[in-house]
């Protein structure tokens, strides 16, 4: 049993954090693992959308979220935060981007700062899971294409026509019903008022 470390206050991450860290093999060992993740995080902050292997993407995602949350929490006047950002971002222009562009972008958000998608795998070669890691609010077009509401796609055109035909048949049926009711009870005009209104299909 270990007591939680209370010297530092951290903000809760809004992504799923696995129980243990992934080891990411490298000739230098743990230092090499952090070097790899540094390069990935620098690339993510620089390009805002990168494609890479799933495991490295997941680890880098956690570190990127932590970096951005520390920057939001403490700002750039806080010396230890500046040192951490200096270590993680290999290109020093990105320090300015982190504190002056990304922090105002994500300051008031309630969601995670990054998104990860599954990318198509290479058809031949090794069976490695690929992922795309991007920052929210990036300037590129969306990766997910929600065309379900596009009325000009063939499936929607056919479905709309089918729905229209069904509705017309229903109206005709109801009109026949009303006509029959009138024949049965001729003098009563209340039936027309009592008949149910036509519902939209």
């Amino acid at each position, binding site marked *: 049993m*270990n007591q939680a470390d209370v010297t530092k206050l951290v903000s*809760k991450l809004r992504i799923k954090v696995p129980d243990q860290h992934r080891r990411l093999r490298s000739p230098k060992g743990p230092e090499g693992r952090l070097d790899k993740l540094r390069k990935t995080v620098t690339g993510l902050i620089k390009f805002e959308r990168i494609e890479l292997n799933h495991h490295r993407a997941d680890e880098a995602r956690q570190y990127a979220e932590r970096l951005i949350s520390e920057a939001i929490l403490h700002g750039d006047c806080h010396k230890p935060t500046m040192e951490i950002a200096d270590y993680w971002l290999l290109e020093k222009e990105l320090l300015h981007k982190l504190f002056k562009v990304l922090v105002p972008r994500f*300051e008031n958000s309630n969601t995670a700062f990054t998104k990860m998608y599954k990318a198509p795998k290479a058809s031949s070669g090794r069976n490695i899971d690929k992922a795309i890691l991007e920052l929210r609010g990036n300037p590129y077009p969306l990766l997910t294409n929600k065309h379900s509401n596009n009325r000009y796609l063939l499936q929607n055109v056919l479905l709309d026509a089918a729905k229209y035909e069904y509705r017309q048949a229903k109206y005709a049926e109801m009109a026949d019903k009303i006509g029959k009711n009138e024949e049965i009870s001729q003098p009563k005009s209340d039936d027309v008022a009592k008949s149910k209104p036509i519902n939209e299909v």
Partner: protein
Amino acid sequence: MSVIRKSSLDILSVGKWILRRDCRLLSAVPEKVEVAEKAQEEIEKLSGRKRRFNNPVLEYRHVYPEFLPDPNPKWRNSLREKMERADMLKRRSQIDIPEFYVGSILAVTISDPHAQGKTNRFVGICIERKGCGLRAEFILRNVVDHQGVEVKYELYDPTIQSIQVLRLEKRLDDKLYYLRDALPEYCTFPQDMDPEMLPEGTPVPLNPVQVKLKPKPWLERWERQDLKGVSNIEEHLKEKDRVRRELRKTPWEKYDLMKQYRKTIPAEDQTEIWSEVYNQLQQMRVSRKKLSRKRLFTTPKPQLG
């Protein structure tokens, strides 16, 4: 028992001085004071720190660290933690478990069926606080008859009759295991030591003492640990030790953000936990202070015969 206590008159005189200072400011230079306040507000707005954790309940994470659960997600269970906290508060309502830190000197009396008078008292310096919930423990160290003795107690052990803080202070390190290899003078405390009272409202003092170690052999490689409370490690090192220490250093660990995250409970979860227990703990502290004041102010009974 000699009791050192600042009289209330001193506090009142300090209060008078502060009031006089304020009156002078208000009468002499009112505009400058207002301008200074406005400038400070503007600075705070510009820095835009909306996400700072300003909640005062979070201060209790230093005073009662055992209320926070173990951060390992394998052993997290919200229901069990809630029940544990309720049990801890129940025990605290029975006996006063005071605020103490690693480096404070405590006196613990436990009920012992085999001892004379059925109680056993031990005085020592706290070298470690570990564990969470009802399994929180601390180790007291003392040197008795030139023999170093360490006793481990559980904070919420029902056989403990009292825990008294004789000297409340903090040290430069989190764990004081190096006292085992230090000169005995740094760990000897008399068993009949008197409690040293601090004036109310003072922050916990930090003892910057730097301990001298005995020559090698040591129990651990103290040179490889980042210890601030030891003065003479370098004297006892050979060239080989220095070289191996440089090779073994891991300077990248302090930048490992996820390692830090996995070792601690995030502030949002901590706020939830502390807001559950804060009120009760605060009430207990206030009532204990009142009781201690009452005890000190009782008039001595007239001795008959």
